[in-house]
């Protein structure tokens, strides 16, 4: 316990200074007023994107400081963070998740797979990119996208 305390003292703040806010806000997110709750849906990713999302919300990049927060139920969410190509098994669940979110709702496609199937394009069992299944409001490119890119994308939603 004391060791942990010392470590906290020693480490101090490890979050990197906030980069300048991206100018272009997503229009549909304007009404959210600096608070975006996010439900993450893995529609068929290789889990590379998940690792990067994890670090975007970790202490170094601290996406939470801009008003984004991961939540446990789509009912609590304003935005879906969809990763990976949409596989056959996940197409219907993705649609249902989208349906479960109360309006106004947004969809963010994270990673090349989610945008245009990336390396899995044409593979067996792939239905298509996320935009084939649910309307996408924002895309974050990269395979996997860097945490900075994810944070920047989220800031376009929160506007902070």
């Amino acid at each position, binding site marked *: 316990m004391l060791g942990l305390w010392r470590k906290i003292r020693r480490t101090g703040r490890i979050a990197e200074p906030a980069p300048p806010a991206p100018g272009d806000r997503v229009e549909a997110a304007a009404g959210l*007023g600096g608070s975006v709750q996010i439900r993450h849906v893995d529609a068929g990713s290789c889990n590379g994107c998940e690792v990067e999302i994890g670090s975007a919300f970790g*202490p170094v990049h601290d996406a*939470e400081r801009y008003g984004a927060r*991961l939540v446990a*139920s789509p009912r609590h969410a304003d935005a879906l963070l969809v990763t990976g190509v949409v596989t056959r098994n996940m197409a219907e669940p993705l649609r249902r998740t989208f349906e479960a979110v109360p309006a106004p709702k947004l969809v963010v496609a994270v990673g090349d797979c989610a945008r245009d199937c990336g390396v899995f394009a044409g593979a067996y069992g792939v239905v298509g990119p996320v935009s084939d299944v649910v309307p996408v409001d924002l895309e974050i490119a990269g395979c996997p996208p860097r945490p900075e890119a994810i944070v920047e994308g989220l800031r376009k939603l929160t506007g902070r």
Partner: protein
Amino acid sequence: MTLLGLIGGVIQPVLIVGGAPLLVGVLRQVRARLEGRVGPGVLQPWRDLRKLVGKEAITPRGTSELFRVAPLVLVATTLVVAVVAPFVTTASAADPVADLFAVVALLALGTAVLALAAIDTGTAFGGMGASREMTILALVEPTLLVAIFALSVPVGSTSLAAIVSSTLNDPARVVSPVSLLAAVALVVVIVAETGRLPVDNPATHLELTMVHEAMTLEYAGPDLALVELASAMRLTVFLGLFANLFAPWGIATSAAPLALLVGVLALVVKIAVLGALLAAAEVFLAKLRLFRVPELLAGSFLLSLLAVSASFFLA
């Protein structure tokens, strides 16, 4: 009904509704700082609420009126407690209406109704959350009542105002073994009742480890706003009660504007400090397995029984 009581009856609920989300903000901020993060700022819960209120309300298919009414009941019970209990002033407008027992029962009523709403959804997680919450409630209630017993024995009354005033008149009582034992027991109770670590993790996303969250999975928009506001208010109310039972200094005993101002400030400071302590402690704790929680609660029950025995033998 005195003027002071009336003013208190208005100020207290307003203060608690306004301050509760800020308290949650403080808790999250303290935690973020200790983890090396920047944190979203103490205003974030208010932003969340503002946004939720503007969202669409959803009635899941197959749920009944109870599901829709539960958030209101939850808020209403906490509001009533905010009016009757001495937070800012000792002279509550409604002191004879409800005593410490009634306050505890009102808070339990809120929990029970939310649990019923969770069962009403018919989802597995709703039932699971309700079952766990009720188990914890059933074990917390005895501790709470026995701790109240210990606190009210020296005063000879369960009226909150009487307990608080008597502590004001006799400050040495705070460091008596009775108070200390009861305080430790109450800390455990508050942690369990408000769903904090190590009993429940308010930030978890894993349904299988959830207690309180699992009951609210179906709520959206304004309903969710009410549930979140209510749980923040409950936390505030519990911390406020704790603060004023064990350290009532600063609470207003007259209707003078200055006294009231001091009362408000004292309450804010006390709750903020307690909240920060709670958040800091949480950084060091991991969630207990659900079936270890009863051991913790049994321990606190024992402490409260000890407190009662002490209150008798030292009386």
